């Protein structure tokens, strides 16, 4: 006879503590999927979706916006049906994820083909992701929708407050440096990130409440996607491709140097939240994102490296001091 599994032991303890009835049947075996396996499946599904869309576009001569939109909707409905029909079949899950990604891309293409407003593009993508988050009955699809939704949200706020053309999404290095004043940039940052900070804090504090309701099927992926977005969102919120294409980097001396440091703060907060969920994968991702923001701090933004080094020395000393004090307070005989 084999030893009881971790879930069986846990259920036994719940019976002993009379949280559940003594004769309550054991739950079905849930699939245990480590974070890197989920990541591999997500990336593969996403890439397969893009390839499917290329196949459809090149083979079926879908030229009009209406036709592309119909194909997108059909793919999304097919994905939903596959997820719904058999929620245990991993092959169908993966195929449905690819269909869903292809459907979302096709729908976005149909809706945004001629649009010349950064705000309209970002807000439409945000709506598509929210609809997928609510309707698609699959955790991986919902987590990806939450992550892409956070990215779309950041751009929506940025274009709502600062305005801009679609090209600004990637290339315009003027966007946050000289065109707008301190007030608009700070406001955009606050509106982008404050709701996400509140959302993740609230979801973690109220975890037992939403776990006790059907809300858990939305809240769990939303929390994971929001934490991923908090950690890495700053990377896409700024024109990160500028250095790669030889744009003007490090020329403007300005107070905006602080933004990558704020992104490091967001990433560390995401790591802190992930630790409370005991998620090694999310914690590691957030720490890697923080290191990436440090690289952005070095390459982007215009203040002198000497000033940047002074900032890093001050931040380092403050963090080290705070860490030492906290550590000392934990030591036997230390301040409680």
């Amino acid at each position: 006879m084999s030893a009881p599994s971790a879930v069986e032991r846990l259920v036994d303890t719940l019976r002993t503590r009379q949280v559940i009835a003594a004769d309550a049947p054991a739950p079905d075996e849930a699939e245990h999927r480590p974070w890197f396996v989920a990541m591999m499946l997500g990336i593969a599904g996403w890439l397969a979706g893009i390839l499917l869309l290329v196949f459809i576009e090149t083979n079926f001569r879908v030229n009009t916006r209406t036709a592309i939109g119909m194909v997108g909707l059909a793919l999304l409905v097919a994905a939903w049906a596959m997820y719904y029909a058999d929620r245990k079949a991993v092959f169908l899950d993966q195929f449905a994820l690819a269909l869903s990604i292809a459907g979302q891309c096709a729908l976005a293409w149909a809706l945004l083909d001629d649009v010349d407003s950064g705000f309209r593009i970002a807000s439409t993508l945000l709506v598509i992701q929210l609809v997928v988050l609510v309707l698609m009955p699959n955790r991986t699809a919902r987590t990806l929708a939450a992550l892409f939704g956070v990215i779309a949200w950041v751009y929506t706020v940025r274009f709502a407050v600062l305005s801009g053309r679609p090209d600004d999404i990637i290339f315009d290095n003027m966007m946050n440096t000289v065109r707008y004043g301190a007030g608009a940039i700070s406001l955009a940052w606050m509106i982008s990130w404050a709701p996400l900070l509140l959302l993740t804090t609230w979801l973690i504090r109220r975890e037992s409440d939403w776990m006790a309701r059907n809300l858990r099927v939305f809240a769990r992926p939303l929390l994971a996607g929001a934490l991923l977005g908090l950690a890495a969102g700053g990377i896409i919120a700024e024109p990160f491709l500028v250095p790669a294409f030889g744009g003007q980097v490090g020329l403007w001396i300005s107070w905006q140097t602080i933004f990558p440091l704020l992104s490091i703060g967001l990433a560390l907060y995401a790591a802190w939240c992930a630790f409370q969920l005991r998620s090694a994968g999310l914690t590691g991702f957030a720490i890697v994102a923080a290191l990436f923001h440090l690289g952005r701090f070095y390459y982007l933004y215009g203040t002198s490296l000497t000033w940047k080094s002074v900032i890093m020395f001050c931040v380092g000393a403050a963090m080290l001091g705070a860490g030492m004090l906290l550590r000392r307070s934990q030591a036997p005989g230390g301040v409680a």
Partner: protein
Amino acid sequence: MQPEPSRAELDQIAGHYGLDSAGVEVLLEVADARPGPGARRQFLAHLLRIGGVLSLAAGVVFFVAANWSEIAVFGRFGLLELLLLACGVLALFRPPPAFAGRAAMFLAFITTGALLALFGQTYQTGADVHELFLGWALLGLPLAVLANWSVSSAAWLLVLNLALALFCGWHPTGGLLWAMLGWHRFEPATVIIGVALINAALWFLFEYLKLEAVPGWVRRIVISCAFAFGTWAGILGIVDRDASPLVTLVLLVMMGVVALYSHRTRKDIYSLAVVLGAFIIVSLAWMGDVMESWNAGMPLVMALWLIVSSTGAGLLLAGTARSWREEATT
């Protein structure tokens, strides 16, 4: 850090038994799914101290990179050497594993790199960037060893792999290293698979030695680097007509040996996941190569292959993870 059972399993239990908030609180407590106040404070202290040391190290690098023209050559070198000396003295008085000693050795390792960069910048030695990083990795190795700290080990491995990636990526046809390899006799794919083998050998060494300074997460970095280079070489081996067929063979052997070892030791499923990930990418490249020229059905075949192979890999890994976890509890 990952509790058993996972969050997904806890969600399922909560849903299956229709637990209310109080019941879920008990469930989370029994499953040890939430760190207590002590653990949270410990994590925060850890995060702040390591973050502080990394920030100081970044400050040193930024300071050197500032192209510090106002200070004379003697002053530039003197300041960095003084910092190096101060780190050494601190580590002597508070030797590792004390945090101060570890942090001092880590800063000394970073300062070594800054010193080499400053030397190259000041005297325009003509050294390639990969030579700078390789010199840093070699000269900094004793410091990383003395630090006896996972953060230092990870930093050393990243510097080494950055040097190797720059060497492979730039494909220089000059310089001391390339001359030693006899560049006219080696194809890029051969050199890259060699770098993959170096990382794989390091991974086996660390697995065997079980060093405190090289915990599981650092070993995961090593095996990821091994198969990142292996995948790169594998793709080159397929698409580059001049590449030796041995490259693909060596990669397959490397995959087999790592998979067998992982299966035998039954410790960490991650290495198996990396092997399967590399296999999926290389096989996708092979499929594209077999079809030779672009044809209408190619994206569909590739998409289906991605779905089938990733599904198979996901099932295999999830099943293996479950069985290893159950075995570990017996």
